[in-house]
């Protein structure tokens, strides 16, 4: 028997899409009858359902603001949460979240997941997010005394650490990359792991003005959305020519291969028309097809990926690969949304990644010095100017960094830009120019 009546939530058990309500109910039931010794409230799931039902009625959330909890020595990784109806729902009186650092690209062995489940059944609510928006495994709902216990078991028994929260480096995340994608221009998984390990201190001890996110996309398709949601976006690319298998191109034209790997097969779009669907849609118009041979003027190609996506069997990314590095993306809070700005058009991405780490540390030094409290990197770059940012990073300006040159001529010339400097003698001036 369910502890609370949940007529509104029950509506969310209907329909075909997996129902989180059904899932929480099954967990509630299992918790009721398990023989495992539970260290967090047995009725956590029941009371969460009850609380959520109440929220559905009131239409205003019933979690209190914040709550400072954590594990010793870490400034991040735990989000405190208290319910504002503790007497009605004691099982979720305190319901803190732990962020656990996910493995690169979110591959798992069932052995590890089971260990995690066992731990979370015993010491938490038995509910998780797989995964949170930043990428972490989210263990949803436990009490304050359990936090250190969980951390102990995670580190000692699971060889696994917490992720980040607060004004620090957030848990880095990456696309699937070379594990299963032919478009990967560098090893996103290896880089993500390496930087996560290198910057453990920054991840766990808030020392920045605000949060800082790295995300690693293997190519301009951008499967982890780094350009929109990372303070530093590393996006794979290449400098040489797209590799063409002319025979395979003809097979696409002949209809032997389905365009776009079969992505459009749910509807009849007519026969594949390379002229219209590839040549005509190339944003730089740098391709030609004479009926037999595909030509690409690679110097004019901006590597948008379209032709490669349409004909993955015939076209491959180049071989001189690396990444473009962009800085400053963020969601609207506070100054409005920003995408990352191209700062380093190309960098080789190879172990031990010294060049990249050097760049990261220069950015952090500058931001830590200049950034205001709760000012994201992108906002600071806007405030101090992109030129200043480049100057600090010792990067030469390049037309690749801009959409178009400035249209206002309000140039902040520096004194050293102007011959003779700014100091002039008004008396000398008056000799030639009467008042």
């Amino acid at each position, binding site marked *: 028997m369910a502890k609370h009546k949940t007529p*509104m939530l*029950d*509506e969310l*058990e209907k*329909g075909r*899409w*997996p*129902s*989180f309500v059904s*899932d*929480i109910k*099954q*967990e509630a039931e299992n918790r009721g009858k398990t023989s495992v010794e539970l260290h967090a409230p047995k009725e956590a799931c029941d009371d969460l359902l009850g609380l959520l039902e109440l*929220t*559905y*009625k009131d239409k*205003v959330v*019933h979690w*209190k*603001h914040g709550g400072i909890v954590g594990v010793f*020595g870490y400034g991040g990784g735990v989000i405190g949460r208290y319910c504002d109806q503790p007497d009605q729902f004691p099982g979720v009186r305190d319901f803190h979240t732990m962020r656990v650092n996910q493995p*690169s690209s979110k*591959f*798992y*062995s*069932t052995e590890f*997941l089971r260990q995690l*489940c*066992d731990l*979370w*059944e015993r010491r938490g609510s038995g*509910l998780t*997010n797989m*995964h*949170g*928006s930043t990428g972490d495994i989210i263990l*949803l709902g436990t009490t304050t005394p359990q936090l*250190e216990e969980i951390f*102990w078991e995670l580190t*000692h028994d699971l060889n*696994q*650490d917490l992720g980040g929260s607060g004004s620090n480096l957030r848990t880095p995340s990456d696309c699937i990359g*070379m594990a*299963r994608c032919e478009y990967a221009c560098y090893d996103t998984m290896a880089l993500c792991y390496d930087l996560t390990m290198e910057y*453990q201190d920054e991840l*766990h001890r808030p020392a920045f003005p605000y949060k800082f996110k790295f995300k690693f996309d293997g190519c*301009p398709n951008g499967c982890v959305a780094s*350009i929109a949601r990372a303070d530093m976006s590393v996006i794979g690319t290449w400098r040489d020519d797209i590799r063409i298998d002319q025979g395979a191109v003809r097979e696409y034209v002949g209809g032997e291969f389905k365009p776009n*790997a*079969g992505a459009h*097969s*749910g509807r009849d*779009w007519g026969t594949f028309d390379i002229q219209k669907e590839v040549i005509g*849609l190339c*944003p730089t118009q740098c391709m030609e097809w004479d009926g037999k041979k595909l030509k690409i003027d690679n110097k004019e190609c901006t*590597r948008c*990926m379209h032709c490669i996506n349409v004909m993955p069997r015939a076209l*491959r990314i180049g071989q001189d690969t690396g990444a473009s590095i962009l800085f400053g993306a963020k*969601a609207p*809070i506070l100054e409005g949304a920003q995408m990352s700005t191209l700062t380093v058009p190309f960098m080789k991405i190879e172990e031990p990644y010294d060049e990249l780490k050097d760049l990261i540390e220069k950015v952090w030094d500058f931001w830590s010095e200049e950034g205001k409290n709760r000012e994201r990197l992108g906002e600071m770059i806007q405030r101090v100017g992109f030129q200043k940012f480049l100057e600090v990073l010792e990067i030469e300006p390049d037309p690749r960094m801009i959409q178009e040159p400035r249209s206002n001529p309000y140039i902040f010339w520096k004194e050293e830009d102007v011959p003779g400097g700014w100091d002039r003698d008004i008396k000398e001036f008056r000799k030639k120019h009467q008042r």
Partner: protein
Amino acid sequence: MGYDPKDPLKDRITDIGPRNYEEFLPPVIKENYGKWLYHDILEPGVLMHVSETGAKVYTVRVGGCRLMSVTHIREICEIADKHCGGYLRFTTRNNIEFMVDDESKLKPLMEDLEKREFAGGSKKFPRGGTGAGLTNVVHTQGWIHCHTPAIDASGVVKCVMDELYDDFQNMRFPAQVRISLACCLNMCGAVHCSDIAILGIHRKPPMLDHEHLDNMCEIPLAIAACPTGAIKPATVDGKKTVAVKNERCMFCGNCYTMCPSMPLADEEGSGVALLVGGKISNRISEPKFSKVVVPFLPNEPPRWDSTVEAIKKILYAYVEDANKYERLGDWAERIGWERFFEKTGLPFTEHLIDDYRFAYTTWRQSTQFKF
């Protein structure tokens, strides 16, 4: 052994980081790492990747709830043990991927996934989310766990996906469509570059708990948190507190983040805004932000009917009208926003004209419009 509260620092281990991903790669992935040549989508939700070694990996992608129980995860593990040698992965958009290294293992896996249902009748593992169709909705915490949400997350997503279920399992769209949800302007989910974004917004300025404000909050922090400078110090009944210039408030909730004595969520005031036309990829056109096309819809638990209805209107107008490979935002720009509102049937109101910083860059400064 284990944690000792009396001696909390004894044998403490810190900063060990995540487990090394190499421990978790299925053998076929490990052996062909970086050697993949091409891929094909065999049918919705089923991918085949071919390596230069000749090896193939078959992936079955199924939609998952971001919120899942350990019981559910154990069931996922049971499937992966039975069919996939004990490995699996999750995608950025909360799908689950089961991989097998031989075509003969595909059918039994698919059949096994297909038949599993929750007690309430919903599918546990709907297959789909590939190609020119709809994939899983990424979303934030909502009423399940956060303190600033204007809307629920998991519930809204459930209702939207129930309605669009067939399009998760099909690939009949002009291009892929990414729907995302964030329950407040903080946008943990970064929905601002999605084809369709569901966003929770507040419409009432913060209430002021003068009685407790000074004890609960650092007043200067609350004042500094406001991006529009709407908050100033005040004294009420001899207590130090703040005052809010209501007409300057844009309901961002920053003050509440800094100060729990300034809540702004409200039964009537908070609800849903819809944004469209954003994208992340560099494919053909550049990445772009989503634009607000529905300024407000009320919170309507449990089935969120108006939100679901508006999303269907937008989505199906696009699906009917757009060219092959054209993303929703590219379509809207090609036909023009005046046509977008005509074709979707959404009303255009004053709230859709920008009045924030740099607003004028979004006003029309030409006579090139359509009648």
